[in-house]
């Protein structure tokens, strides 16, 4: 187990190294930082001086090494716009985004398993056909459109939910303020979470359904029936456990993808998270912030995937983590 963990951490470090390289290459090629720092009315000599001072005339390798050294100490540069360390800016926005992802994950997990199982067990009922039909619509319609439609119907039309912002927050610790402590917070996070879930939920329903249908055809399910096991036990113990193995793997990747989708959702709902921040940073050519965002998102990806692989090893008895490390 420990050996496997160490191996996975090494892999994660390698991936982060590549991400940092890509991130830095972007920074190096995206606009001129001096223009953002100094504006137009400064002479060329002063510019050159500052260029030298900031080390912008050094070779790529030296600049990258310097960047990496600082990054390892948690310094991802200073945002041109906020005049604050880029990492701090992101960490302040991170809780909002993570809560949004958490809300969407709740919706996805809560609905995909029962609906996926139901449509697999009773594929020919009208309800199953409706669910499958809607899931196609959900996958096909882009998130920003779903989000705008939701605002139009539920916020503007019926007025059931607020259309933007996070509402009443309760401070937990550090930069973390939560939506989940007040009713107002819940009502603010509901629509954005639903919009964010709108693509992943149908995807997972379909994934669980097709996996489950395949598992229900297997010999061991037939055998369980031949043993006279109660049907609900066959569905939820024999079949579901085998169904969820591949779903867990896909799920890990999709959580990372969902963080990326927050850019759209947060923009439509004016949600003060890091996706919204990223889009603003792009508009302002705030390169250090863009790079820091890429690195933080890459980090979230790597961490969730590592955790998911570990969970998979624990759930699937055929994966022996102790042996895999050797």
């Amino acid at each position, binding site marked *: 187990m420990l050996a496997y963990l160490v191996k996975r951490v090494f892999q994660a470090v390698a991936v982060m190294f590549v991400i940092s390289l890509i991130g830095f290459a972007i920074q190096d090629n995206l606009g001129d930082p001096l223009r953002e720092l100094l504006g137009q009315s400064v002479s060329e000599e002063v510019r050159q001086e500052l260029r030298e001072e900031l080390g912008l005339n050094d070779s790529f390798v030296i600049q990258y090494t310097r960047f990496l050294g600082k990054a390892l100490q948690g310094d991802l540069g200073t945002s041109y716009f906020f005049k604050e360390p880029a990492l701090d800016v992101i960490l302040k926005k991170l809780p909002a985004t993570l809560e949004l992802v958490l809300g969407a994950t709740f919706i996805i997990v809560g609905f995909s398993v029962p609906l996926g199982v139901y449509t697999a067990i009773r594929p020919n009922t009208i309800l199953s056909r409706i669910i499958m039909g809607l899931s196609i619509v959900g996958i096909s319609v882009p998130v920003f459109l779903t989000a705008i439609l939701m605002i139009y119907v539920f916020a503007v039309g019926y007025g059931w939910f607020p259309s933007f912002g996070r509402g009443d927050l309760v401070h937990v610790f550090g930069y973390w303020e939560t939506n989940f402590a007040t009713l107002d917070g819940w009502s603010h996070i509901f629509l954005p979470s639903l919009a964010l879930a709108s693509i992943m939920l149908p995807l997972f329903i379909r994934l669980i359904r097709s996996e489950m249908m395949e598992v229900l055809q297997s010999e*061991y399910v*037939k055998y369980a029936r*031949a043993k006279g096991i109660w049907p609900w036990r066959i569905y939820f*113990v024999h079949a579901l456990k085998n169904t969820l193995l591949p779903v867990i793997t896909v799920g890990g990747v999709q959580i990372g993808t969902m963080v990326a989708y927050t850019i759209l959702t947060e923009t439509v709902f004016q949600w003060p998270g890091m996706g919204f921040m990223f889009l603003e940073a792009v508009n302002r050519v705030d390169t250090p912030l863009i790079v820091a965002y890429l690195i933080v998102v890459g980090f979230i990806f790597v961490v969730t995937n590592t955790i998911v692989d570990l969970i998979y090893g624990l759930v699937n*008895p055929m994966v022996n983590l102790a042996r895999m490390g050797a």
Partner: protein
Amino acid sequence: MTLLSVRDLTVKFATRDSSVTALNRISFDLAKGERLGIVGESGAGKSITGFSLMNLLSRPGFIDNGTILFQGDDIVKMSESQMRSIRGNQMAMIFQDPMVTLNPVLTIGQQMVETLRAHRKLSQKEAEQIAIVKLREVYIPSPEDRLGQYPHELSGGMRQRIVIAIALLLDPQLIIADEPTTALDVTIQADIMELLLELCQSNKVGLILITHDLGVVSQMTERTLVMYAGKIIEAGRTREIINDPQHPYTQGLINALPQQTQPGNPLKQIPGNMPSLAAIPNGCAFNPRCEYALDHCRTTAPEIVQYAHVEVACHEVSRLHSDKSEERSA
């Protein structure tokens, strides 16, 4: 006493616009504790017979007609919940490939205990005790430790022993074994068969052994059914069928055994293939491959009738028999 009585069992598979007949009016009986072999080529309907007895045909297969009286009750008419209480309890099944029969994500213990608790009110502890006793009966070493293991940690032979132990858990009246050793190593096949025979005899359990191996049938069973294209074509005492087969198909099967051929000579095959269920020839289904076939064999299907010591479905059985006696006397 009759344990199982099958009459005119007909199974069909629904196709897009009609259906094909997979079992055509099968009838046989099984006495309590009797061991019956069902032999035939792949696709003859052996496995379908086994699954029909459990009422476990998967779609698009369905029982079209006939009765299956098990201890006097008709399985065909039973509700799903009545049937559930019989499966695994009074009638158990051993599947072909132990590598895919056991659920890979549940421990041996879980899969044994759930079977017991599906049919009897037992605590976890009590069920585990019974499981250990049964594992010991199939000669599994240190059965206590096996309960916590997953199927993939055990060999194929060991897994099939566990499947046999599960079949015996609730002391059933009948075990249906569908080619229980086909997927196993040759060296282990004999062990498993011997074990199955020993347990059936000592527990007085009825056995229906589905196989294509005539050697196995001759060792394991008292009576044999030979199936061809969804029909029983010959039935009787195993010894008589093996020693003096009446139907040309059964004769062909036995002549095709490697033991019947001098080493170095090619094996004697039956020419042609079994017809697909969708294209069964008119008359006797075997007629295109039969060297004795006459015109009426191509038009009318033979009924199964008593002949010599066995029942056989062949128009020309008497001619065949006299030919053979002439051969012998010549």
